[in-house]
Structure formats: C-alpha cells, structure tokens
C-alpha cells in the first residue's frame, strides 16, 4: 500500500457550525506538520485521520483505506498520541498499560510480558515498569503514551501537540523520537514551531480552512508574519 493521506472536499460540522471547510489535500511526505492558531482546526484535522471525527462532507483516505468505511483497519494502522497523557494512560502501571496495547493479537501472556519489558527498556522506562503511572513525571508520561502507541506498530502516527507540557530537553527528546526515531509516517499538530520546522511539509490552518501546504520554513514564516502584522 502506498503511504498516502488523501482528503477530498472534506467538511466537518459541530452541530450547526462548520469547524472544517472544504479541505482537499494529498500528502505523501514522511513528516507532516500541522500549524495554525487556537481553534483553527488542527486537532479536528488530526482526528479525522483515524476516525475520531467523522467528516460531514467529502472523504478521507489513509494509506489507501477509506476512514469512514474501513474504520477498524484504519484504527489498526493509525496510532494517535494526545496532548494530555493522563487521559491516555489507561492502566495503573506502565507495564500493564503497554500490555493492554498488545491485547487481542494472539500473543501469549509470556510473549506479551517479554515484549513489554523490551519496549520499556528501549525507551529508558524499565525502572518504572511497575510504579503507579500517575507518579511518573510529565515527560515520562508523555513518553509512555507514545510507546503504548508505537508498540502496536502503526504505519501512521498522529500526534496532537505532543511537546506542549515538556521542557526544552524533554521536548527535544520527544521531537527527536517523532522525527528520526520512528519508522512510520507521522502527522504532528503543534504550536512548537521548532518541531514543525523539522518536518518535511507543513499545513497551515486558519478558521477551519487549509490555507497553505508547503515547505515548513516558508509556511512558518507566513504564520509568524501574520501575527507580526496585527
């Protein structure tokens, strides 16, 4: 399957108000940044890609699959990382949380435990495997949330502001992982313009419209210019 994301004439309504209008775009870049003001539609765009939001008009296809009609397969293939890791960590401890991600894949308990240890070790979380997840630091939680997604080996990772709560060091580490450390395609909605600048292509939203798609440096410069002008 080609790793292409394609939206054709997509609109999204919240009740009576349109929150995304007539978005058409074809994306085959590996690292895709999504930028724009608060309420411009970044999160809505991101959520379209795994069916958390359904379009009221148009079609969304991810890697050749229609998100509306092949919801199950799309969910298997698309991993989603939210801003707030607290909402995403669903089990009391990191080890249990990763094990949850591996459920229903026909793995034995032993195999799951094995895999969980490997992944925790790889991301420097081995020492925290059985500690209550809520007592992890913000950076560790954010990392755990991402690992819980990566362990399912998605082909597309969608991340909604993955670095917002992190300091320079943790944000850099998370960015390195998303940009260079993973094999899958990635869509990253973010206010962190340094992170956006490291992507291959950037989308800029404004008031529910896709204003611009292009080389990140240029798109970010336009975005900045718009605020400087005000």
């Amino acid at each position, binding site marked *: 399957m080609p790793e292409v994301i394609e939206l054709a004439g997509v609109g999204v309504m919240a009740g009576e108000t349109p929150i995304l209008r007539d978005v058409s775009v074809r994306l085959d870049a590996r690292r895709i940044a999504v930028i724009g003001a608060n309420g411009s539609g970044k999160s809505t765009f991101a959520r379209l890609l795994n069916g958390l939001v359904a379009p009221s008009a148009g079609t969304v296809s991810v890697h050749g699959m229609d998100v509306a009609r092949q919801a199950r397969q799309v969910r298997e293939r698309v991993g989603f990382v*939210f801003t707030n890791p607290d909402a995403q960590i669903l089990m009391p401890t990191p080890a249990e949380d990763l094990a949850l991600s591996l459920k229903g894949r026909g793995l034995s308990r032993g195999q799951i435990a094995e895999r969980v240890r490997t992944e925790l070790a790889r991301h420097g979380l081995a020492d925290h495997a059985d500690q209550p997840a809520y007592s992890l630091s913000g950076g560790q939680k954010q990392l755990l949330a991402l690992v819980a997604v990566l362990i399912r080996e998605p082909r597309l990772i969608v991340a909604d502001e993955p670095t917002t709560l992190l300091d320079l060091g943790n944000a850099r580490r998370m960015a390195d992982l998303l940009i260079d450390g993973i094999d899958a395609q990635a869509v990253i909605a973010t206010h962190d313009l340094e992170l956006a600048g490291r992507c291959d292509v950037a989308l800029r939203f404004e008031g529910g419209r896709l204003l611009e798609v292009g080389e990140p440096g240029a798109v970010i410069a336009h975005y900045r210019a718009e605020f400087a002008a005000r």
Partner: protein
Amino acid sequence: MISLYRPGRSPLHRLPAEAKIVGMAVLALAISLWPHTPVTATGTLLGVLVLFALGGFGPREWARQLWALRWLVVFMAGTQLLFLGTEPALVNTVRVVSVVLLAGVLTLTTRSEEMLDVVERALRPLARFGADPWRVAFTLSLTIALVPVIADFGRRVREAQRARGVRLGVRAVVPMLVMSLRHADDVADALSARGIA
C-alpha cells in the same frame, strides 16, 4: 492503590480465592442460620479468631478489626438492648460480628488482583447474555488508574480556592465534576484511538 490485603505465606494465603469464597459463604450461612445460645455464639467468635491465627494474624489484628467494628457493635447492641433484651442482644451482636470478621479474614489473605480474576471468571457464563467479562474487568482497572487523576483534580480545585482566597464548601464538587466529566470525554477518545472500546 493500597489494598486491605496483607502479604503472607499462611495456608489461608495460599488457598485459591474461589475456595475461600465458597468456604466463607458456607460458614457464614451456617453461623447465621444456627439458633445460637450465648455459649455457641461466643464459641463461633472464638472459632473465627482461630481462623485469623491460621492466617498468621494475632491479637493485634483481632483488636484492630474489632476496633473498626466499634460503631456497628454500639449500634447493634444499643438497638437490640432497647427492643429485645440482654440475651438476644448479646447473641445477635456476637453472631453478626463473627460473620463480618470471617469475611475480613478472606480480604486480609487474598490479593485484590486475584479477586479481580475471580470476578472476571464468574462473569464468563454471562457472556451469552451480552456481558463482556473483559470489559467489566477493564472498567474496574481503569477506575483504579483514574482515582489518583481525579484526586489530583480535587487537589487543584482546593489550591485554586486558597490561591483566590475563596471558599466554596460543597460547591467545590462542581468544578471537580466538570473537570472529571471533560476528562471522561478525553479518555473515551483514547479508548477508541487505542482500539480498545
């Protein structure tokens, strides 16, 4: 989360949870239905204390458990003395305390995780009627994972009151609840994004 379970290696600790539950049910029923005299009632209580000893719990634990039941004892003994007289009051109170303590032994010697597994297994026959044992077990562990998160909302609301120099009293439940319900929507999104429910 802290459990009432006390780790140990006694025979009672090693007994499978199901066996303990069935055993406890049978014993509790027997204790409850037996027409007690003050002597048999006291004998029963002593028998339960022997079970505690079997689980490795000495007089300290007896005292602690009895202390936890002080209001029950006061309430029962009080009303029964008032309505029924001395002997029934003694018999009934001792009998009920025995049954409650008996159940306490089980809780002290069985891990919560093991009990959770029992719940999941017990639900399996109900799968035919649309109950999903895994979902039930998952909801239970999700709740455990969420308690500290929600408690933290409470802490933040308390701090906000202090920082703003205001006191809401019971009304403080409102912002806590609004935050919690919004959090529930985020968790629901995560459940669906992670392909869980």
